[in-house]
């Protein structure tokens, strides 16, 4: 069980990072804020005993995917993309409205009772345990995910292929 002080600091890191990613006007800052958020999330995973997921979170998300984001931001950067400013006030209001409704519902959910009705199974988050589960219980979704990746690769190639005339 994670110490409450650690839990709250990691949660604060996650939330502030996410907030920064949404509020930042410069795409580069948004991506970097997202990195902070993902680090906080990874800390929370450690607290849950999901060590493997925590490491993968940092390796894959912070390490690979966000780097890719940064590359894209740097490569396509132009004066227009520099500032992601939603000018339409109605769009802003709509977003805030939806957020408020969701927050209100979540508030009720949290207020309804501390413990979840059924405690999830205690999981052992080691590489061995995750690997074992992936190749036994979750064999089918695991295999399906490989087809999913194939679709992603083929799709990316098809769309990136030079225009045929």
């Amino acid at each position, binding site marked *: 069980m994670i110490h409450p002080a650690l839990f709250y600091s990691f949660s604060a890191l996650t939330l502030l990072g996410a907030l920064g990613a949404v509020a930042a006007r410069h795409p580069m800052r948004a991506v970097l804020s997202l990195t902070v958020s993902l680090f906080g999330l990874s800390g929370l995973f450690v607290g849950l005993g999901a060590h493997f997921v925590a490491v993968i979170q940092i390796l894959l998300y912070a390490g690979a995917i966000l780097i890719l984001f940064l590359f894209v931001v740097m490569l396509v950067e132009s004066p227009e993309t520099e500032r992601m400013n939603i000018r339409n006030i109605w769009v802003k209001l709509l977003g805030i409205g939806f957020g408020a409704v969701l927050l209100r*519902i*979540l508030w*009720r*959910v949290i207020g*309804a009772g501390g413990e*979840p*009705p*059924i*405690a*999830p*199974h205690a999981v052992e988050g080691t590489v061995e345990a995750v690997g*074992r589960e992936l190749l*036994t*219980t*979750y*064999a*089918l*979704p695991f295999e*399906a*995910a490989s*087809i*999913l990746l*194939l*679709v*992603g690769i*083929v*799709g990316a*190639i*098809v*769309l990136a*292929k030079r*225009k*045929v*005339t």
Partner: protein
Amino acid sequence: MNPGFVIPTGWSALLPELALTGLIGLILIGDVLLKEEAGKILSGIAVAGLAAVGFLVAAQWDQPARTVLAGMFRMDMLAVFFKGIFTIAALTTVLIARQTPALIRRGLGEFYLLILTATLGMFLTASAGNLLMLFVALEMITISFYVMVSYHQEERSLEAGLKYLVLGSIASGLFLYGLAFLFGTTGTADLTEMAAVIQGGLTESPMLVLGLFLVLSSILFKSACVPFQLWAPDVYQGAPTPAVAFLSVGSKAAGFVVALRLLIELLLPLGGVWIPVVVFLSGATILAGNLGAIPQSNIKRLFGYSTIGHGGYLLIGIAAGSFLGTQAILFYLAAYAFTNLAAFLVITAFSKTTGSDEIRDYAGLSRRSPFLAAMFFLALLSLAGVPPLAGFFGKFLLILSAVDAGHGVLAGIGAIAVVISLYYYLMIVKTMYADEPADPSPVPVPTTLRIMLWICAAGMLGLGLIQKPLVNWAAAAAQTLF
């Protein structure tokens, strides 16, 4: 310390899926090896393979329901029924793709591959026994469609693809968020175990309700229903015709199999919470689709609105929350498959020769190709719901289920919308039969399309006149949920 390494068993229940996966591999390798004439040979392989998959699916009909692979995969009549629809849609889409010049220019091999991976995703969606499996399967469908929609790489096609991608990603996020709440409340991701926990009296949990509404939003997106319907017209107009045909029949059916599995099978004890919402959304969707279709001048855009309307009708069956409603949905989907595919076959044949999707260019089609005009006439009447065609009986069953469930107003809206839809469908018929053609040259129909059109016409008329077999099959499949 070391629990036994249990290898999951029961792969034999996955025979159609395994065959489909093999076919995907064959197309992938074939596309690399065959350079010249690859399109023709590959489409032959795809059609033959899909026919074989169809036989394997049919062979599973009437087999006892099984749950295999640690609860990940369920083979039951409902899944088999849907897989039948998916196979027909995929087969027709392959044939349509072969007749679409813009696609041929860009290479057909990858397009066939994407059709097949989307089909595999649909198969797994229908059979998913676990939330994790369901999510992976749905993503397989959506990601295949993202690429198919933007395949043309023209401005419109890319715009459609981008819209679908952005909105689809939001819907996937909502779905995953909802699944997390369902998992958190029930403590299990297995659908059978979850149903038991929920029936054990979890109906009051607000967390479950939140999960329910998040999942519902995502289902509404997939099946293009209010308030997540806005993408449909743009995507339908911009995407390649085969992608649209598959989207309108396959993806829509996939959305409704998820709705049946999650809302009816799993969350019916919470019906008091979601049924009023779905009743309202169903009525709103029917009106939004049918009223939006009236001013359209592009045939594919018109079908984008009409498909919203049909999604609304299908929601009636979900709102009924009953055996009758489920049976009606199944009948409607099968009838809709034949009808809508027929319409898209005509659109394909027409645009292959004329290169146009504008309704005004359909003027005088009855003189340029009496066969196409007659087939389109039949499909439009069936879509509107005119007896004795299949579409009529489907709408009839759905409205009946609404009355039976006590949703009189919804049944009324459904009946009124038939009249609205007749207006814009018959406007097309008027253009085809009464108006003078600008260019009187005949429109040839390729043999494969002609054969498929005859099959669809037989389906529309046959299911409309002799409804009993399909009604019985739908009942057997619906029985799975009750």
